[in-house]
C-alpha cells in the first residue's frame, strides 16, 4: 500500500503556506525577532530572539470570532490544516468519520499554562478562566482542527520532544495502513511563549548573541551555541495513493514509513554521546524498507546549532549512512527555527524537489560532528528523503519520504 501526501499547509516565521515556505528555504535568510522580555523571566545577556509567526496574516484563514477562544498553537494548527485541505483540493464535509487527526507537539500549551498558573498564584483559583483551561490540554490543537474540518475519525496527540512530529507520522501511517482512516491530517505544532523561551535559554538550548549581537542557529558549526527558538505548524494530508488517484488529486510526496528508538543510557536532559540503540534502530528501519545507505538521496535533520544535539545526530547519520559519500544534509531549522513543523515542511518540500539555499550560520565545521550541511548548490530531484530527529532524554526518530507527481 502506498501512502501519499496530497496536501500541505505551513504556518511558520516568514511563511503562510507551502509556496512561501519553499521561498524561505530557498532564500535561507532567517529573520528572528525580539521576544517579549518584559515579564522579567529572562537572564541578562541570554538569547533575545525567536522565529515567531506573523499573526496579522491569520485573518486570511481564521475569522477573529473563531480564533478568539484558541491558543496560538490551536490557531496555527487550524490554519495549517485548512491550507492542507485546500492544497489537496478537498471539500470540508460537516461530519466526516473517515478523517483522522494526529498532532505532535514538543511543549504543549505554553502560553495558556503560564496564564492559568499566574491566575492561580496571583489572583486565586476562582479567577481561572474556563476558556483558557480548555486550551491548556496538549490535544487542544488537534481538537480544534477536528472541529474546523468536521473530522470525526481518531483524534490523537503525541509528544516525544523533538521526535514528536515523527511519532505523529508513524501513528498516522498506521491509521491508513490498517484501514481505520481514509484521510489523516497529521502534523506538528508548537508555540513559543516568553516563559518557555526564557526556560530554554536557562537550559542553554538557545543560540546566544555573538560579538555583534547576532543570534543564529549554526548546525554542525564549531561556533554553534544553540537553536533559534521558534513556533508554528505544518500539517499534511495523508491518503492512500489509490484514493488520491481516484479523486483526481495530486501526489505531492510519498510517506514510506516512520520509526523510532530509544537509548535508555542517554542522560535525562541530554542527548548522549553515542547513538547506540538509535543507530541500530535506524539501520534496521532502512533494511526493512529495502534500502541500502546509498539509496538515500537527501537527509533532512533536526540539527539546529546546539552542539551536543548536532553531534549526536551527526554520529547517528554517519554511523548508519557511512562516513563517506553522504547525500546532501539539510538542516532547515537554521532557516526557520526549531519546531517540528519546520522538519515536516522541509522534508515534504525536499521530496518534491524544492530548492534549498545554503545552511545559514555554517562556516566553520565542527570536527566532532563531521558533517558539512547543504551548501546551496543545485541538487538533482531525490527519490528518497530521510527525515531524522533526535531528542534529549534518549529518543530518536526517522521517516522515509519519496518523490511525488509534482
Amino acid at each position, binding site marked *: 500500500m502506498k501512502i501519499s501526501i496530497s496536501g500541505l499547509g505551513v504556518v511558520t516565521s516568514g511563511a503562510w503556506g507551502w509556496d512561501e515556505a519553499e521561498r524561505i528555504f530557498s532564500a535561507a535568510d532567517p529573520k528572528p525577532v525580539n521576544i517579549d522580555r518584559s515579564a522579567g*523571566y529572562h537572564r541578562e545577556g541570554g538569547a533575545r530572539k525567536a522565529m515567531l509567526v506573523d499573526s496579522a496574516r491569520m485573518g486570511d484563514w481564521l475569522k477573529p470570532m473563531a480564533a478568539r477562544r484558541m491558543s496560538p498553537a490551536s490557531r496555527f494548527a487550524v490554519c495549517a490544516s485548512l491550507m492542507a485541505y485546500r492544497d489537496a483540493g478537498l471539500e470540508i464535509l460537516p461530519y466526516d468519520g473517515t478523517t483522522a487527526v494526529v498532532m505532535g507537539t514538543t511543549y504543549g500549551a505554553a502560553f495558556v499554562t503560564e496564564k492559568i498558573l499566574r*491566575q492561580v498564584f496571583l489572583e486565586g483559583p476562582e479567577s*481561572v478562566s474556563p476558556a483558557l483551561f*480548555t486550551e*491548556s490540554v496538549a490535544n487542544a490543537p488537534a481538537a480544534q482542527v477536528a472541529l474546523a474540518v468536521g473530522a470525526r475519525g481518531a*483524534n490523537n496527540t503525541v509528544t516525544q520532544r523533538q521526535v514528536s512530529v515523527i511519532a505523529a507520522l508513524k501513528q498516522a501511517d498506521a491509521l491508513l495502513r490498517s484501514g481505520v482512516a481514509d484521510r489523516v491530517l497529521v502534523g506538528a505544532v508548537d508555540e513559543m511563549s516568553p516563559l518557555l523561551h526564557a526556560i530554554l535559554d536557562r537550559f542553554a538550548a538557545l543560540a546566544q548573541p555573538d560579538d555583534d549581537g547576532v543570534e543564529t542557529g549554526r548546525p554542525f558549526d564549531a561556533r554553534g551555541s544553540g537553536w533559534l527558538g521558534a513556533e508554528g505548524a505544518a500539517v499534511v494530508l495523508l491518503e492512500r495513493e489509490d484514493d488520491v488517484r481516484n479523486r483526481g488529486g495530486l501526489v505531492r510526496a510519498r510517506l514510506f514509513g516512520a520509526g523510532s*528508538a*530509544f537509548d535508555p543510557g542517554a542522560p535525562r536532559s541530554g542527548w548522549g554521546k553515542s547513538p547506540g540503540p538509535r543507530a541500530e*534502530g535506524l539501520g534496521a528501519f532502512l533494511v526493512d524498507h529495502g534500502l541500502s545507505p546509498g539509496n538515500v538521496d537527501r537527509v533532512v535533520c533536526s540539527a539546529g546549532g546546539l552542539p551536543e544535539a548536532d553531534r549526536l545526530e551527526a554520529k547517528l547519520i554517519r554511523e548508519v549512512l557511512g562516513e563517506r559519500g553522504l547525500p546532501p544534509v539539510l538542516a532547515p531549522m537554521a532557516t526557520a527555527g526549531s519546531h517540528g513543523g519546520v522538519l515536516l515542511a522541509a522534508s515534504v518540500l525536499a521530496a518534491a524537489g524544492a530548492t534549498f539555499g545554503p545552511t545559514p550560520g555554517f562556516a566553520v565545521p565542527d570536527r566532532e560532528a563531521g558533517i558539512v550541511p547543504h551548501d546551496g548548490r543545485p541538487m538533482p530531484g531525490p527519490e528518497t528523503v530521510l527525515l531524522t530527529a533526535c531528542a534529549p532524554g*534518549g529518543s530518536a526518530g526517522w521517516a522515509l519520504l519519496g518523490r511525488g507527481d509534482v
Partner: protein
Amino acid sequence: MKVVITGVGAVSGFGWGVEELCRGLESGATSIRTPSVFDVEGQRTTLAAEVGPPDADAQMEIDHLRNLSRADIFAVIAAREALVRAGLEGGGPRTGVFCGGSTAGMAECEDFVGRIVGVRPGKPMLKLLASQQLNGPGDAVARDIGACGPVVGFSSACASGAMALGAALQAVRSGEVDVALAGGADSLCLLTYSGFNALRSVDPGACQPFRKDRQGLSLGEGAGMLVLESLDQAVARGAEPLAELAGYGASCDAHHMTAPHPEGDGALAAMQAALKDAGLEGIDIDAVNAHGTGTAHNDQSESCALRRLLGDRSPEVPLTAPKGALGHVLGAAGALEAVASVVALERGAVFPTAGSAPADSDLHIDLVLENPRQLPPTSQTWISTNFAFGGANAALVVRRLV
C-alpha cells in the same frame, strides 16, 4: 494475531499495587478524601483521590528513583510491578513504551512558576523542570527497564492512557515490538484542579457516577501499566496471559471543546470501532467499564451511546464506573481502568461503583452498586471507554482467554 496482557501494575488512591487497587474496588469504598499535596482553599471542592505514602519497602524503592516527578514515579513503580507479574526482567531493542498522560511533571513545574512569581519560597531551579515534559513518565519507564524500541508519549487529555494502549496493540500486531509496556500516569496538580473547579464540573463531595444527583467529577492521581505481547510469544516463554486485548477504537465528536455530543455519537463510534477491531458486536459485551465521570453531561451522553450500542440489553449489562472510587486520573484513567478490567475478568466479577446514592433510573443502565457482582462463567468480554476534552474518544475491548 492475538495480543495478550501478561502483566499489570497500578498506583492509585488505594495504594501502591494491583492488590491494593483490587481490594479497594471490591470493597465499594472510595479513595477520595482531602488531599495534602497542595492547599485546596478557595476551590469549589476540597477533595481528590491522592496516592498516599507507600509502605516501607516501596518507599525504599522510590528513594532510589532520584530527580523524577511524582507522575514519573507512579509510572515506574507500576511498570516494575507489571514486568514482575509478566515474568520479564527488562527491555531491549524489541521492547517499546507507550505512555499516556495529561500533565506529567506539571506539579513540579508549578513549583518553578510559583517561585518565579514570588508566591513560593526558594529560587526557581531548573531541576524542577527536568521532568516537566509530557513524555517524562514514558521516558522514565524506558530508562528504568532498559527499553530500546519506540518510546512514545500520548497526550489526549482523559483518553491518553487508552490511546497509548491502542498504539501499543498496533505495535505488537505489526511486529514493530515484541513487548510493549503501555499505560498512563498523572499526578494531582493545581493546573487541572483549579481548571476543573473553574469549569464548575467538580462535585463538592466525592463524585457519584451515574447517580441521579451527580454534581461532577473528583480528580485523582496514579498510574496503570500493562505488558502486551503476542499470545504465541507468551505461550512460548511459559507466561500466563491474564487477558486478551482484543480491540481498540477511537473517534472524535468534532462537536464542542468540552461538552460531549448529547446523543453520544462519538462515544458510540469509538466503541463500534473497538468491537469491529476485535471481530465482535454489541451482543458480545458482557460488562462495561464506563468512563463515568459523574458530570451530568458525560453520564447522560455515555449512557445514551451505550443504549444505542447494546439496544434492549442495555439495562441488563452490568456496568461499573471506577472514578467513584479512584477519582478521575485523567491521562492515566484509561490505563488504570484497563488494569481494573483485567483483574475483574480474572475474578469473574464486576466491581461496585462507589457512592451511596441510587442510580439514575433515567439512564437505563445496570449500575453495579455496593458489592461485587459475580458474572456467569460464560462471560468473557468487557468494553472500557474513555472520553476526553476536545471530543477525543477511545474504547478498548478486553477478553478472558478461554
